[in-house]
């Protein structure tokens, strides 16, 4: 197909990543891109025998499809859904991400049942948002089953993954009392001294995260699938995961 031909001809793989999604992808102290997504993308390119060029467009531009040959691949921590599949392809799943409930340090909540009367902070237009609305569109075959909340809490939706944490940090219940967030993000927040904690031993849900390509080149998709598969098989991906997350995120089990 067109994409594969181009990549092989130019010996270059144009990969879109995020730069604001630690620890998946971010700028390190030398102001270079680093993180799990970056290492994974580099590894894919290495196995294809080409060089990588990173671009950082908006999430929406990537998930909207119609890349017009601007980019070849997205290693963007995107979760496959049925709706998204209309515009883009998901040739391979490369890790699983778990979502947890985060509360203020002073909170007395021990289980999710204790969160019945608190206001939730959620990043809008994410799987977390879908989860809160009981409207997950995940392909259930690849993930273990999960339970929706059996109550409907009050909710504030934000346009960024950071703002819920900023609001939670103001105090327990000052604006919000709980956040539903990616575990890696929550851990990062705790590491940087945010006065928050996770509800222990409770994973809201586990979502698969896929490599993304534009529509229109099945050969390229197949090639990516084989490459990722080989990375999984020989443990390279696991090693990368352990490097960045301190655990193996490549298996469909809650960490």
């Amino acid at each position, binding site marked *: 197909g067109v994409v594969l031909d181009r990549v092989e001809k130019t010996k270059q793989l144009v990969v879109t990543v995020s730069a604001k999604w630690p620890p998946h992808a971010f700028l390190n102290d030398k102001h270079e891109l680093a993180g799990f997504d970056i290492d994974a993308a580099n590894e894919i390119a290495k196995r294809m025998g080409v060089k990588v060029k990173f671009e950082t467009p908006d999430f*929406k531009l990537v*998930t*909207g499809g119609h890349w017009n040959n601007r980019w070849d691949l997205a290693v963007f921590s995107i979760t496959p859904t049925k*709706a*998204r599949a*209309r*515009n883009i392809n998901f040739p391979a799943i490369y890790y699983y991400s778990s979502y947890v409930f985060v509360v203020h340090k002073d909170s007395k909540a021990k289980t999710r049942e204790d969160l019945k009367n608190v206001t939730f902070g959620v990043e*809008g*237009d994410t799987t977390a948002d879908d989860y809160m609305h009981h409207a997950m569109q995940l392909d259930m075959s690849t993930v273990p089953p999960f339970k929706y909340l059996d109550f409907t809490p009050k909710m*504030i*939706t*934000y*346009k*960024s993954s950071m*703002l819920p944490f*900023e*609001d939670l940090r*103001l105090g327990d219940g*000052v*604006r919000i009392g709980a956040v539903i967030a990616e575990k890696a993000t929550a851990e990062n927040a705790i590491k940087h001294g945010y006065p928050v904690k996770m509800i222990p031993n409770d994973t809201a849900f586990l979502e698969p995260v896929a490599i993304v390509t534009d529509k229109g080149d099945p050969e390229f998709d197949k090639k990516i699938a084989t490459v990722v598969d080989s990375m999984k098989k020989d443990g390279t991906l696991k090693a990368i995961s352990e490097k960045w997350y301190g655990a193996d995120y490549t298996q469909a089990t809650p960490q």
Partner: protein
Amino acid sequence: MPLTNRKKYKKANTFYAVVVLAILIGLYFYFCIENTSWLSDLVKQSSGDPGRVKFYSTLVKWVFGVALFIANFFLLGKIPKRIQILITFAELFVLLGLFMATFQLSLTFILSKVGYMITQGAFTTLYVSAISIFIAFCIALVTAIARLSSNGVAVGLATFYTSLFRGLPLLIQIFILYLGLPQLGFIINPIPAGITALSLCYGAYMSEVFRAGIQSIPKGQWEASKALGLHKRKIMRLVILPQALKIIIPPTGNHFIAMLKDSSLVSVVGVWELTYVSSTLGNREFRNMEMLVTAAAIYWIMSITLEIIQSRIERKYNPATR
């Protein structure tokens, strides 16, 4: 108006020009957009290479397009200005529509969502903007007068305010207000935070406009009013501001329209205004382009409304066009 139209037109001319124009446009559409097979056939006969076929077809389309454009220009020159403007508008509108058509948007999806976008999204946008505009207007007036006053403290306060709130990005202002005020003990809700930030920011912009407007009124007006014994406040209200309005209105219109759209920034703190609603709806079913275009159209309609209001007010306060 110094640039007047000295030409005189005959009715018959107008009629023929419009008819010829319509025929030309019709032909172009039929042969260059709807039904281009004759073109590829023609090119194919001389060369079989498909890349070349495409290139030549495009070339022919462009050449005819430019010819049509020129013919359009000349034909329109023959008719009165009013109709010229109308036809140009219509043509551009159709062109815009054609451009949009290349995106192959799902009209049914748009129609199913547009109601909610207006009742929830556009309504919130309008009401947040309207309140902010009102407050910004009051702030701007006070600040402008303070900047021109003889009191150094007032000048200092007003200048600092203008500089700071013009200088900081609105988004950052919203963040700082939303996250900073709680540190001082005021918990502020998303909508009030958004309105405060919008008012402060646009108040700063508009105070510059007001200041310039007030400064532009000739000294003679102040002198004549002073000599009549009027006080500063009354001079400002009765003599200076009504005249300054002529100069103030157009840039104020700009800022009102800009604010309408900047109000979308308040969605970061969770206000469901038009942009937010459109992107949420679009994301859910992955029809972002549809929602973007619909939101754009709604914004455009709102801003056209503001434009019309502006031109009405402008006509009222500009004696030259009275």
